[in-house]
């Protein structure tokens, strides 16, 4: 069975290679091939899943050692895979959602002449992501980590002719690179501490290292996670990443890649458990991002950016949960999976809407679309209910569990965390309802686009709607499945461990409170957007609103802090390099030239003056010899 793991990764990579190198002759059928590859890996994943289910809880870990990668002295990095329940969960999510979104893209990218390359990139992403979650050591994980970064770079900038897209792609990659530095430093620390960076050798011995070191490792891992999962302070790239085609946003920037950070933290749980300080930081980051994303989500008029804000916020939940340690790991992953379903669903819905609206993204130009695209409306609506935590839909379970875990952290922290998360829940309900209302309800507000095409909304083709239905189904059902007999908990427990903190409040109370704040949020949104007509041109709004529209000034800050100073620095250095470093050299050369020019004068061409120097020299020689003999 183990040998299948390699195939799992290989299939999409093969697809990518074929599609990207294949050339134009593949243009016609290429996308089907890509879809097939994704499907193959999904099938393999399912097969492996059942293979795991057959085993007992502890033997549910498969290893496959392919070859030794970089052996230099006692530095040993192998290309080896480890498939345990945690990886399996991700593999299923990735391949499943991935396959669906491949299918969706077949319809969505129909009219793009570079569709073949798009599928190539998607396959590349799948391969890298699977590598990330299947690696059995951090260095190989790093490869996948950067791989998905590359794929996201390529896909965000897929429409490269748009400068905005190109810039966004570059921004995403660079910001991620900052995170990657964290990951590499963490790996370096592991190597110097444990002499290895394989999960099997680092994690079991984590507690043997000093807490300081572990805190360092933890913080560096967190930095990496922040970069990949768009957590404060490295969150700025996610909003711009929406420049990419919508399927990309759904797959990479909602369901899978951005959750890699959570995977990293949960995977390195052992390290964090031994480093409480690091954990606290993780929790704080999670909490801050949670609110940050929610606030941003409330202000955006661009449907995708609003959803991006929501993504940040939801991942904030997961981070927070992961920061809680064994209390929260399981629920972090659980929320991650459910979020994968409904957020992907939401994005696909948004994509379908844009598909029908000439790629219009401003929600103020939508309105009343429910009659025009019913399927989209229903699926989107279900996903919406799921995310706001409507009772007995998937979001309800996962989020409540996290909130409960937050409370069960105990003490004031518990109350603070719980409160923050409830607030977040309210905001979630608010902005999601806002999106819902602005898009599907109210009177139609759309207008001709730049080149005068009157949009005539229509339902999307089957290739697009089917995935949406499936995901909506997932969004509805996942909660039940996971909660039924705590199956999910038992599934993950052997890997992540599970503790039950002492919560001051009971599960029931949490659920009630969550539902209550959810209702509050929905009501608030309805009062603002449901009752009165939505203005086509955004009102100036309060200071907070305007700040939130500008992503709470994060970009302005980054620009002032890094971009500006950086450009000044580089320009200054270029000047210095030319004037100072080079100037010294050229100056020396010039001075030598001048000197020799002067010395040349001595050569006046008169034989007699040469003779003088000759005899002078002779005299000197005689003098020297005499002196020598005298001495």
């Amino acid at each position: 069975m183990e040998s299948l793991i390699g195939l799992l990764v290989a299939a999409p990579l093969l697809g990518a290679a074929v599609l990207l190198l294949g050339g134009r002759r593949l243009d016609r059928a290429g996308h089907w091939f890509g879809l097939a590859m994704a499907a193959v890996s999904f099938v393999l994943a399912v097969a492996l899943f059942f293979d795991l289910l057959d085993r007992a809880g502890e033997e549910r870990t498969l290893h496959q050692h392919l070859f030794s990668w970089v052996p230099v002295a006692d530095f040993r990095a192998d290309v080896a895979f480890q498939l345990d329940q945690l990886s399996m969960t991700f593999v299923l999510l990735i391949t499943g959602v991935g396959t669906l979104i491949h299918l969706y893209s077949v319809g969505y990218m129909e009219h793009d002449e570079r569709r073949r390359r798009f599928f190539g990139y998607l396959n590349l992403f799948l391969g890298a992501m699977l590598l990330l979650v299947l690696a059995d050591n951090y260095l190989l994980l790093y490869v996948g980590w950067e791989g998905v970064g590359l794929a996201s770079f390529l896909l965000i900038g897929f429409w490269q002719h748009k400068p905005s897209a190109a810039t966004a792609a570059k921004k995403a990659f660079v910001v991620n690179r900052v995170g990657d530095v964290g990951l590499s430093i963490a790996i370096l620390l592991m190597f110097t501490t444990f002499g290895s960076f394989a999960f099997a050798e680092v994690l079991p011995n984590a507690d043997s290292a000093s807490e300081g070191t572990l805190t360092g490792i933890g913080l560096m891992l967190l930095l990496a996670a922040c970069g990949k999962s768009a957590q404060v302070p490295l969150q700025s790239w996610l909003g711009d990443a929406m420049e990419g085609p919508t399927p990309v946003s759904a797959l990479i920037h909602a369901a899978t890649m951005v959750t890699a950070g959570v995977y990293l933290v949960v995977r390195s749980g052992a390290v964090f458990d031994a480093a409480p300080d690091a954990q606290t930081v993780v929790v704080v980051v999670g909490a801050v991002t949670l609110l940050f994303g929610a606030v941003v989500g409330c202000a955006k008029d661009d449907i995708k950016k609003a959803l991006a804000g929501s993504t940040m916020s939801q991942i904030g939940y997961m981070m927070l949960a992961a920061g809680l340690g064994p209390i929260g790991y399981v629920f972090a992953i659980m929320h991650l999976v459910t979020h994968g379903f409904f957020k992907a669903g939401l994005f696909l819905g948004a994509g379908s809407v844009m598909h029908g609206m000439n790629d219009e993204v401003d929600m103020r130009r939508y309105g009343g679309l429910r009659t025009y695209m019913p399927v989209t409306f229903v699926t989107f609506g279900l996903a919406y209910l799921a995310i706001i935590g409507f009772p007995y839909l998937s979001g309800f379970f996962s989020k409540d569990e996290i909130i409960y875990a937050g409370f069960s952290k105990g003490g004031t922290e518990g109350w603070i965390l719980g409160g923050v998360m409830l607030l977040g829940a309210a905001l979630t309900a608010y902005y999601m309802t806002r999106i819902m209302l602005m898009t599907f309800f109210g009177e139609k507000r759309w207008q001709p686009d730049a080149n005068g095409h009157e949009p005539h909304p229509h339902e999307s083709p089957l290739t697009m709607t089917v995935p949406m239905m499936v995901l909506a189904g997932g969004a509805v059902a996942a909660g039940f499945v996971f909660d039924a007999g705590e199956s999910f908990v038992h599934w993950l427990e052997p890997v992540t461990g599970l503790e039950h903190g002492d919560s001051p409040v009971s599960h029931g109370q949490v659920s009630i409170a969550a539902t209550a704040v959810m209702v509050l949020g929905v009501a608030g949104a309805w009062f603002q957007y449901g009752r009165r007509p939505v203005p086509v041109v955004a009102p100036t709004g309060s200071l907070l609103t305007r700040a939130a529209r500008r992503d709470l000034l994060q970009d302005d800050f980054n620009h002032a802090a890094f971009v500006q100073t950086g450009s000044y620095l580089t320009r200054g250095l270029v000047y210095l390099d030319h004037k100072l470093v080079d100037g010294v050299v050229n100056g020396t050369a010039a001075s030598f030239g001048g000197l020799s020019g002067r010395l040349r004068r001595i050569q006046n061409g008169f034989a007699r003056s040469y003779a003088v120097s000759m005899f002078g020299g002779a005299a000197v020689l005689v003098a020297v010899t005499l002196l020598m003999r005298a001495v």
Partner: protein
Amino acid sequence: MSTLTTLAAETSTSTGEAVQFWILAPLAVLGGLGTLLLRRAVHSALCLAGTMVLLALFYLANGAYFLGVVQIVVYTGAVMMLFLFVLMLVGVSAADSFKETLAGQRWLAAACGLGLGLLLIAGIGQASTGSFTGLAEANGGGNVEGLASLLFTRYVVAFEVTGVLLTIAALGATLLTHRERVERNKTQREQAEERVRSGVQLPPLPAPGVYARHNGVDIPGLLPDGTPSELTVNPTLRGRGQVREVHGQALADLAALEQRTSAYQGRPSPAGPAPRGTALGGAAAPGDGAVSTDAEEARK
């Protein structure tokens, strides 16, 4: 010869040699100074020749008889003559001006000269060895034989090479000074035509000197009217300012001659001098005859 060998055999120099040295050395130095300081190249050459002769004497005194002779024969004899020849080619009379043209050259030269001299002398003084071995046994079999035996045994290769060197030098000298004739030389006829075309002095130049008494090349011949002719004397002489002036004497002779003839014919001497032109004119014919007789006398 034997005396000379004994002289060289002494290991400490005789007073005789000392006397000789103290007399001759200053002269040699004077010669050197002369070579250095005299303005006319010829004089420098002569001074140098003198110095060389003196040096030859010193060689002899040092028991280098062969070299002494060679010095006189080769140097003073051949080399210096060569110098003088070249000087003639270049112009004997040309005298250098001692006005220094190179800035500071003179001072530098003085400094170098003095410095070098002092240093050398100091060096010799430092290297002073009280005693010395004379050439007694070295010259035992005669100086020339000794040299010869060395020259043809140990130094034979060098000797041969110098021979080659001399040959090459001779060749080189001829090669350098030889001038390739570019155009064929003119025939007499062409030369004559050329002269006619240029229209200067077709007949041969008139002879210098007049009236038998003075036919030196430095006296210009007189034209029939008694004026001296420039053509008759060598321009070089004139350039050197060595042309003797003729007028007074010639006219006096003329007057004397006229008196004698008038006395011989018994007619009274004319009152007052006849107008010059006619007198000369009249005197011209016999003058010519006299010249011819003069020439005859000169031939005898």
